């Protein structure tokens, strides 16, 4: 079963991250690299992407003529996707365990963090209702 692990944060979280010390940043980047490698080595890795920061994020809606109307005003509390991993595991518990590892990535001062990671199952094309 495939799961997506989504790391999210408000604009304030992104701003705080931007102020980390060089050492904190290096530690965090090293952790993220090792984490991705670990997923690959253990045979559960499907995909991962990081997203550009939300400051230039736009909401697009179709206007009357189908032309895009863009808007960049978001409430302060909005959670933005920072990046995700997709993994293929045998149980939800295994996905939660891996998500907890990502959540504990070293934060400011090198202490393990507890970032929220949203875990959702990815829909498959398998169908068997037994009907």
């Amino acid at each position, binding site marked *: *079963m*495939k799961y997506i692990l989504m790391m999210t944060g408000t604009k304030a979280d992104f701003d705080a991250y931007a102020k980390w010390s060089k050492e904190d940043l290096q530690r965090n980047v090293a952790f993220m690299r090792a984490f991705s490698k670990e997923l*690959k*080595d*253990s*045979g*559960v*890795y*499907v*995909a991962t992407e990081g997203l550009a920061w939300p400051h230039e994020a736009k909401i697009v809606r179709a206007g009357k003529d189908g032309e895009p109307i863009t808007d960049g005003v978001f409430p302060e509390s909005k959670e933005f996707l920072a990046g995700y991993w997709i993994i*293929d595991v*045998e149980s939800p518990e295994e996905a939660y365990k891996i998500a907890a590892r990502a959540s504990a990535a070293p934060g400011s001062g090198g202490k393990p963090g507890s970032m929220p990671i949203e875990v959702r*199952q*990815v*829909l*498959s*094309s*398998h*169908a*068997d*209702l*037994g*009907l």
Partner: protein
Amino acid sequence: MPIWGYRTHETVESKRMEERSETPIEVLLRELTPQVLGSVIRRFRDFASAEDAVQEALLAAAMQWPRDGLPDNPRAWLTRVAFRRITDQIRSEWARRRRESELALDPALTLESTGIETPPREDDTLILLFMCCHPALTSASAIALTLRAVGGLTTAEIARAFLVPEATMAQRISRAKQSIRDSGIPFQLPTAGERAQRLRSVLHVLYLIFNEGYTSSAGPRLRRDDLSHEAIRLTRIVRKVQPNDAEVAGLLALMLLTDARRLARTTPEGELVPLAKQDRALWDREQIAEGVALLSAVLAKGSVGPYQLQAAIAAVHDEAGRSEDTDWSQILALYELLRRMSDNPMVSMNHAIAAAMVHGPSKGLELLEALDSDPRLGGHHRLDAVRAHLLEMAGDHNGAITNYRIAAGRTASIPERNYLMTQAARLSESTGR
């Protein structure tokens, strides 16, 4: 070729056949894979290096044979090339170790005798299956290893079938080989006492491979249905080496009788069609006949197991000309036997459906209620879907709509969700809710 005589599906089917077609050399190579691998492991004892060497030999054959023609003895050719590759590996490993610590190699691996042909052993394929489906492996690892080592599929093909990157599948296979190496499982048949249990693990892995292909409704473009055919092919191999095991025959019959309905169970767009609504003209009569014959032969022998019972249930469905002709009391009796044999809540759920078909929906709903408290099923969308179906049968449309929607919210499958939402929408339009 069975006659389906149905326009849209016919084109889908002929396209599938085309995509599936392998050259005779490819077919031969896949047939020889487990035999050659068996000989190499028997000789060199190291599963991982043997597997690598055989893959290289297969690759060499795939390049050379179409150009130069088949060798006189293709199996011996492959074995020889694999022996040579593994010998080269050992030589360089030996040189490296000597440089490092002057360690002597296992004297059993003397290089001079590698030209000697190992006679083919019938057991080899079976031993290989026992290794690949070892209970020490996770099912994902066992599946990948079986498809590669016994099925002769490439890592890229297996990765494509499971929709993961090739590197991930390669890693899974190499970890599986590593755990076989670490566990020191010898290349020999399990003891008589263990054998039945170990054969059950093999059959379970084959069943999982079949289901992975069969339950996929992704449409022909993803070719996942190849997995069902691969599982059938592998089960035929097991049957050849274990001709007297009734459950092996039962599993093969179950696969044939289930797979016979494959074209009818989804629309060409991949939408789900429940059994009662399937176009039975699309069922593969030839495959049904083979499954029924196989099953009748083993059932006559006596020792009935769960795969045979499931095959018997599939056969009752397959033999009904129309959905309303289905002999549900026979299916109910078979589920009752099956329930006594295995404590599986999915079996109990299917039993409830059969009871509803025989004694009416309220009997089925009453049996489902007992399953609500089963923690193994708690919150499982199939339970909600079946309840919705039985409520609809009972005329409680509002209850059915609610349960179809609950099931839709719980499933992790796109075609199931589409199907369940459509059922709820259809009922809600007719009741105006």
